[in-house]
């Protein structure tokens, strides 16, 4: 049960990060967001 809730939290955070990736005005901060996205997606799908 708690795992499902936490996956949901990860999904919401990942969506917010993607949103941020598209609203950043500098490439380096876009890249920073893209980097952070990688582990979030892997955990959301429970691959790692």
């Amino acid at each position, binding site marked *: 049960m708690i795992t499902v809730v936490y996956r949901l939290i990860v999904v919401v955070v990942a969506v917010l990060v993607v949103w941020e990736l598209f609203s950043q*005005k500098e490439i380096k901060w876009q890249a920073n967001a893209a980097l952070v*996205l990688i582990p979030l997606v892997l955990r959301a799908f429970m691959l790692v």
Partner: protein
Amino acid sequence: MVGTKKTALALLTAAVAILILVTPQFTAMHTADTINKGPGVTAVKMLSDYFAGLKNTPGDTAVYVLDSGKPGGTALVVGGTHPNEPSGYIGAILLVEKARPTKGKLIVIPQANASGFTHNDYSEGSPQRFALTTPGGERWFRYGSRATNPVHQWPDPDIYVHAASGQKLSGSETRNLNRAYPGRPDGTLTEQIAYGIVELISREKVNLAIDLHEASPEYPVINALVFHERAMDVAAIAALDLEMEKIKIGLEPSPKTLRGLSHREWGDATGAMAVLMETANPAQGRLRGATNEALVLTGQDRMYERAAKLGRLFIPYDKNGQPLSLRVARHVTATMVLIRDSFEKDPRQAVVVTGVPSYREIVTKGVGAFL
């Protein structure tokens, strides 16, 4: 540099590309190792046969029964409690594939924490697998993690409270099978695995239960045998017998204050004599140099040589290192000696095991020769 929607899209694509490239490497760890049924194996059960709650979970694991068909005692050998301690599970696999009991029953769980085999410890840089050269060619085995995969048990609490005692440990220990005993049927996956193993010990009326581990060379309890108080006599005799074969092994009583470990809880919760053994694995130590498959196999490491010269290690260590074959040889030989000695007092309860290569054979030919 100015970021636009286009650059954002490009970076998102790059992230997705990395995900596509890297995912198969992680998921490959879920493919089980091949373990062959040896001539002594009479039944292959699952841990869920002893605790149904584990059925169809990543915690279920194979239990090999080697029954001589003749009355006698029952011995249990557990490997892979910590899947980053390969001499334990390779030793157990060797027993599955080679041992032939002629009296009593031998039960082997080679991969006690099956979930731990499906990933690696973060920030440890471990290899995912290693190859042994066998008569049938190269054979691969996974090198896993000390703990249950977070994919199967997540999130960790801030603090792990051992259910039976209230003892507190750092949160990630929640996934450490050897802190979870005696386990709980309604607990975490790790606690359920622990519960299943304790159920097995009780139901099979195991007389002697051996847990095979490794530790880093700078850890004080190393090349050692940790015994529950009821196993004291057996442990002492076995240590003397091993000494005669020029295998030095330290004796450590199981501390009453340290809870959740097999040598404490198996002994307290069941009628078995509980013993845990450690060999020295440089690939899991904190002082090791480059971490790779070669280190797992040869146990040779320059940093450990330096640490040995500094007097920081609890084992003799030189350029020959601590090869996996040597560590497996120690475990297998000590296991055989323990099984023999434990039933000396009551021959009706004896377990006699044949077919297992000797210490010298494993060291000189390499463990792969017997797999």
